[in-house]
């Protein structure tokens, strides 16, 4: 059975690109548009890995990560954040919020899959 990746991003473009890269790599993908939506989808779909953007309306990536880490049922799910290269501060903040790792935007599909493999089977 293929692994399920939950992607959380408010940009349709980014969601579509993640979908393309991940499905081509054999993952099953579920999507959410922001942190609040992400927590809802999380509970409904039980993903194996989460890839999330940081800057989103309603609930940003930090809030979302804390939400996942605070959820007894889902706290062990690896979470990768999407961030731009220059955002050392963001990376650090995401890490402190409980992110498992990060993917640099614009992402290289090969590196994306590499990163997922590094945090999930």
């Amino acid at each position, binding site marked *: 059975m293929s692994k399920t990746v939950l992607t959380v991003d408010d940009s349709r473009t980014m969601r579509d690109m993640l979908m393309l890269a991940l499905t081509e790599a054999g993952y099953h993908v579920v999507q959410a548009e922001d942190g609040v939506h992400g927590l809802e989808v999380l509970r409904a779909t039980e993903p194996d890995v989460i890839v999330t953007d940081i800057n989103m309306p309603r609930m940003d990536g930090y809030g979302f990560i804390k939400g996942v*880490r605070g959820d007894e049922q889902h706290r062990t799910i690896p979470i990768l954040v999407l961030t731009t290269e*220059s955002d050392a501060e963001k990376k650090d903040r995401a890490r402190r919020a409980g992110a498992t790792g990060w993917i640099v935007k614009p992402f290289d599909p090969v590196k994306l899959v590499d990163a997922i493999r590094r945090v999930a089977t």
Partner: protein
Amino acid sequence: MAMDAMAVIKQTFFQECEEQLAELEMGLLAIENGDHDQEIVNAVFRAVHSIKGGAGAFSLDDLVHFAHIFENTLDLMRSNRLQPTPEVVKTMLRAADVLADLVRAARDDGDFDDARTEALAQELAALGNGGVAVSAAQEKEEEVDLSQFRPRPIAFNFDEEPAAPAEPEKKTFSIRFKPKPDLYAKANEAALLLREIERLGVATITCDTSELPLLSELDPEGAYLAWTVELKTDADEATIREVFEFVEWDCDLEIKGDAASEAEELDVLALIRKVREAVEPEAASVSPEESVPAKAREPEDRGPVKSADILKIDQSKIDQSKADHAASGPQQTTSRVDRDRLDRLSELVGELVINQAMLAPRVTEAGLARGSDVTVGLDELEQLTRGIQDSVMAIRAQPVKSVFQRMPRLVREVAAMTGKSVRLFTEGENTEVDKTVIERLADPLTHMIRNAIDHGLEKPEKRLAAGKPEEGLVRLSAAHRSGRIVIEVADDGAGIDRTRVRASAVNKGLISADAQLSDDEIDNLIFLPGFSTAEKVSDISGRGVGMDVVKRSIQALGGRISITSKPGQGSVFTLSLPLTLAVLDGMVVTVAGQTLVVPLTAIVETLQPKGADVHGFGGGARVIAIRNMFTPLIDVGRELGYRNEAADPLTGVALLVESEGSMRSALLVDAIQGQRQVVIKSLEANYRHVHGIAAATILGDGRVALILDVDAVVANSRADMTAYLEPNLALAG
């Protein structure tokens, strides 16, 4: 395959850009109006950030470059290091325009104004420097910084393995890796990292379990294990460190090159099994396949340690966040539906409405009692039908926002061209109306706004002299009023100069010099074809498009336009439009035994002609005197070829209609049956174009009725009449 998919995503990206650009502009305008809500600043930042992100993925370098500078400046504003003064926001609005141009240039493979882009990029950078212009050296530095931002092209090719670096020489590394509890708390997994290390070459992994306490003393959230890895690989140290990239803060990591060690060989699976055996003896029988994906620390292993509290706190934050959002307005979820399907649905609902209307009289005819099951069921059907009709109309309805959003930019541009200072104020942009109406509203509105700034507002000096604020105000508003949408374009300019308008109309032969006109009538002269009050045709309004064209396009939508003006205080143009183009308010009339529908919007009034008022000319042409104005009397029956002989006007009804160019005519029909809403059916789509007929409809009794094209009938009749009466026709005035 992948390339096609990318092309589709690219399209999505440009669509999304338009949404982000609209969001950006709206946010900046709100900030300009003094709304300093942090969420608005965030939304504005996010819009630019999103555009940059997508642009990077498609290697749209110019766009990324500009968006990056813009983003940096917005970031300063976001963190309160840059105050949103009017000057700052104005620059940002212009930057938003440049960004929009760059997006469109990228989308259409078109050009953009290089100099303007560069100038604004520098202005933005200068804002970041506290208004100090960027010196050459700093600029250079900025360039260097930006070079990090070159988007990396994406190779969506999964069939090919990335080329392995040609480095034959193998080295041996000694790695010591000791996770801290935080590593596990962030859902990182030591075993997975070790597996990645193993991929790099030949690894000998030793697990150090010396710190492992007794099970009874073991903290499920603790970290007790450490690993030593002897790795023979052609990868370099950086590659090894990259494996631990995510965990370098959460573990002790030592990597030494060219070390030798005699470690016990263990593969990762055996290792995990060993660990599990140590931690929980009952799990010893777990097969290796299962033990890989299974976390060394399953949730149930951890026990209820403090996590309930964590959950509680975070849940409350989530709730708070939800509440915050609820306060800031509902999130819209949308589905994209093919337009044809929607049209088909509207059509079917139209049929349903007609069918339902047909049933009612049949039931009455059948003599069924009012309280009978059939009657009651029919009443319910009527309710449901109406409900469905409303819902379908709601699906087709969209807020006028999409058109209103284009106006701020227009205002800025026209203001810059005319040297006027203008503030645009919009309200009611969430007012909904049929999508088709919205699409056809953009041009007339654009023209009216241009007009309001160019002709309505005075030059700043003049305004100051008149004791008004230097900045002119243009208000654009929308509201629902009695089943229609009413849009107003108002300005606080000088108002209509009636003396000049009148003189100009006389000059152009539109009215006679001694015509008696009320103020209102003078104001409405500007809607006459070929009327232009500007002494000198300006670049902006004088494009050969006059207010007559605006009026014409509004009428084509079944709408009306009017103007009220107060000298020295300004003018208000009022548009009233139907909420949908699928149904029409019509006057049902009888002509030569046929039933016709005349659009109600065209009818000014109805009257019973009196013998003394009707005057005949040769060739059957007649005029009717209405309040001392001679108005052509058009026999609809003859015009459409239903009869050859002219009908007796005294037994019929005259409908005073207003058609193209504010010309009034009287349509003679035999009788009025009533007024009703009809569903418009295209005649062209079902039959062919018929002169004088706009469309068809099906009445409640199931008969087809034609909808009159008032403009066409009037124009045709006037052409006939003019040909006949050419030398001495002087109807106007």
